[in-house]
C-alpha cells in the first residue's frame, strides 16, 4: 500500500476527532480553515483543471455569504437548506457570468471575472435593502432544523456540517475531474483549439465548469456568514480573490488537495505571524516570493516529491489526440 493513499483517511480521521482534543479557539480556526479550503478547492476546478484563471472568485464567496445571510435573517429555513439554496443561487448566477466571461480568453478572461466581482462589490454598498450597505448583514443566526434538530447550531455541530460540505465537495470534484467531462476540461487546459477541433463545444464546457466552481465557492461563502455571524462588503473585495488564488497556487493547482493545504498554510501563517509581529504582511509577502522562486510546484508537489510518489491525478491524461500545447515564447 502506498504512503499517500493512507494520508487521506488519516487526515479525515484527525479532522473528525478534532473537536474532542482541541480547545475552543483552535476549533474556530479549524472551522474557518475547512471553509477556506472548500473555497480554494472550488477555484482549482477553474484554475488547475481548465486554466481559466479567475481574478474574481470573491464574487462567488460574497454571493453565497450574502444569499445565505439574507435567507437566514429573513426566513425560518433550516441552516442546511439555506446554505444549499445560497450555493445553488450562486451557481445559477454564475451561468450568466460564465457566458459573458468566456467571450474572452487568457488575461482578458481574468480581467472580466475581476470586473464582475468589483461590480458586485460596488453594488453591495448601494443595494442597502438586501446587503445592509457598508454595515453589511449582522447577527446572522444558525436556524435550527430540519426536524427540530438543534445540533447544527452548536459550535462543534457546525464544524461537522462544514466538514461534511468539504468532504462531499471533494469527492464530487474528484469524480468530476476523473470523468470524461474532466478529460475534456484538461483538453481545454492543454490545447483549446485542438479540443474544439475534435468536436467538443469548449465554450459550453467552460461555462459549466464556471457554474460548478462558483456554486461550490458560493457554498463556502454560504457557510462563512452563519459561521462568522455577519456578511460584509470585504468578502467581495478583490484582495479576497487574490488571496484565494494564492492559496491554490501555493498549495499546488490541479490537485484538489493542494488548494486545501494552501488554505491551511495561508491561515496558519497569518495566524502565527500576526501573533509575533505587527508587520506580518511583510513576511507573508516574502514567503510567497520564496515559494514562487524555490517551490513552484506548490506544497502538495513538494510533499509528493519528498515522498517519492505521483498522485493519480498527475498520470491522468487528456483525450489521447490532445497533446501538450507548444510552449509559447515569452515576450
Amino acid at each position: 500500500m502506498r504512503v499517500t493513499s493512507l494520508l487521506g483517511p488519516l487526515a479525515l480521521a484527525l479532522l473528525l476527532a478534532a473537536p474532542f482534543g482541541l480547545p475552543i479557539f483552535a476549533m474556530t480556526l479549524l472551522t474557518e480553515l475547512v471553509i477556506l479550503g472548500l473555497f480554494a478547492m472550488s477555484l482549482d476546478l477553474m484554475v488547475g483543471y481548465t486554466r481559466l484563471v479567475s481574478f474574481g472568485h470573491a464574487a462567488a464567496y460574497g454571493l453565497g455569504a450574502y444569499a445565505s445571510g439574507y435567507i437566514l435573517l429573513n426566513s425560518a429555513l433550516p441552516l442546511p437548506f439555506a446554505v444549499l439554496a445560497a450555493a445553488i443561487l450562486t451557481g445559477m448566477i454564475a451561468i450568466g457570468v460564465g457566458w459573458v466571461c468566456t467571450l474572452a480568453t487568457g488575461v482578458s478572461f481574468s480581467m472580466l471575472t475581476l470586473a464582475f466581482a468589483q461590480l458586485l462589490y460596488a453594488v453591495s454598498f448601494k443595494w442597502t435593502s438586501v446587503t445592509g450597505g457598508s454595515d453589511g448583514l449582522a447577527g446572522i443566526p444558525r436556524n435550527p432544523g430540519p426536524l427540530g434538530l438543534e445540533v447544527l447550531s452548536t459550535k462543534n455541530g457546525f464544524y461537522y456540517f462544514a466538514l461534511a460540505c468539504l468532504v462531499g465537495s471533494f469527492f464530487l470534484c474528484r469524480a468530476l475531474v476523473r470523468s470524461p467531462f474532466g478529460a475534456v476540461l484538461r483538453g481545454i487546459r492543454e490545447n483549446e483549439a485542438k479540443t474544439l477541433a475534435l468536436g467538443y463545444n469548449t465554450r459550453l464546457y467552460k461555462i459549466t465548469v464556471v457554474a460548478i466552481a462558483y456554486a461550490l465557492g458560493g457554498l463556502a461563502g454560504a457557510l462563512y456568514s452563519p459561521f462568522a455571524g455577519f456578511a460584509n462588503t470585504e468578502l467581495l473585495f478583490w484582495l479576497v480573490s487574490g488571496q484565494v488564488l494564492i492559496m491554490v497556487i501555493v498549495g499546488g493547482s490541479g490537485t484538489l488537495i493542494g488548494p486545501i493545504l494552501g488554505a491551511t498554510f495561508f491561515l496558519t501563517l497569518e495566524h502565527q505571524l500576526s501573533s509575533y509581529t505587527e508587520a506580518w504582511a511583510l513576511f507573508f509577502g516574502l514567503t510567497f516570493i520564496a515559494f514562487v522562486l524555490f517551490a513552484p510546484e506548490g506544497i502538495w508537489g513538494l510533499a509528493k516529491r519528498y515522498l517519492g510518489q505521483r498522485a493519480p491525478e498527475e498520470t491522468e491524461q487528456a483525450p489521447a489526440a490532445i497533446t501538450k500545447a507548444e510552449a509559447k515564447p515569452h515576450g
Partner: protein
Amino acid sequence: MSTLAFLLNQSVNALSQAALLFFLGVGLTLIFGIMRIVNFAHGTLYMLGAFVGYSAVRITGSYWGALVAAPLVVGLLGTAFEFGILRRLYRRDAHAFLMVTFGLALVTGEAVRLIWGSEALQVPAPALLSGVVFLLDEPFPVYRLFLAAAGAVMAFAIWQLLERTRLGLLIRATSQNAEMVHALGTDVNMIRSAVFGIGCGLAALGGVLAAPLVTASHGMAASAVIDAFVIVIIGGMGSFLGSLIGALLVAFVQVFGNYYYPDFALAFMYLLMLLVLVVRPGGLLGKEA
C-alpha cells in the same frame, strides 16, 4: 453657473483625473507589452511614489524636487526587483508573475507602513500651483490645470520616446518578437529591466502628482491597481494609445457619473469595461481576441 462653465469645469476635472490614471495605465501596459506580466504591485508602487514624494519635499524643501526624486527612487527599486527576481521567472507561466508581484505588493505596503506609519500624510502643492484661476467667472484650482497639462506633456513625451528614439524602437520590437530582437544581438533582459523601471517610475510619478490632491495614504494602492487594470483592459493590453484612450474614458465616466448618479459612480466604470470587452474582447486597440 452657466451650462458652458459647468461643462468646462467638469471637463478640466476629468482631464486632470485622466492624467493621473494615464500615468498608472501606461506603465502597466508597457510592462505587459514587453514582459507579458500583469503587475499586481502597480497600485502599491503608485502609493510608494506619494510617500517618497512626501519625504523628498521634507528633505529638499521643494515639490519640484519630489517630482524628480519619487519616480527615480521607485523606478530604481522596480529595476532592482526585475533584476533580482522577475528575471528568474521568464520561462515560467503567468501564475508565477502574479504571485511574485502580489508578494511584492504585500511587502511594499507593509514596508511603507513601517517607514511612514499608518497616518495619511499631507503633501502641500507649491505656492505657484496652489491658487485658483477664474474660468468663465468660475473659480478653478490651478493644480488641476497643472495636472491636465502635465498629463498631456508626458503623453507626448512617451509617444516621442516610443516612436523616435532607439530605446523606443527596441521596446516596440521586443513587444512584437523578443526572440528575434535577442537573436539580432540586443540584450532583451536589459530592455525588460529598463521598461519595468520606467513603468514603476511612471506609477510613482502619478502617485506624487496625486498626493497634494488626496494626501498620501495606504488606501491609494487598492483603488489605483484596479483603476489601472480597468484602463489597460479597456484600451487593450500592451497598447500605448489604448492606455491614453482608456484613461480619458474612465476619467470622464468617473467624474460625470459622480456628478449625475453618485450612487452608481463605482459601477459605471466596470460596466464600461464589461461593455468594451463584450464588443471587443481584446480591448479597444488590443491585438489578442
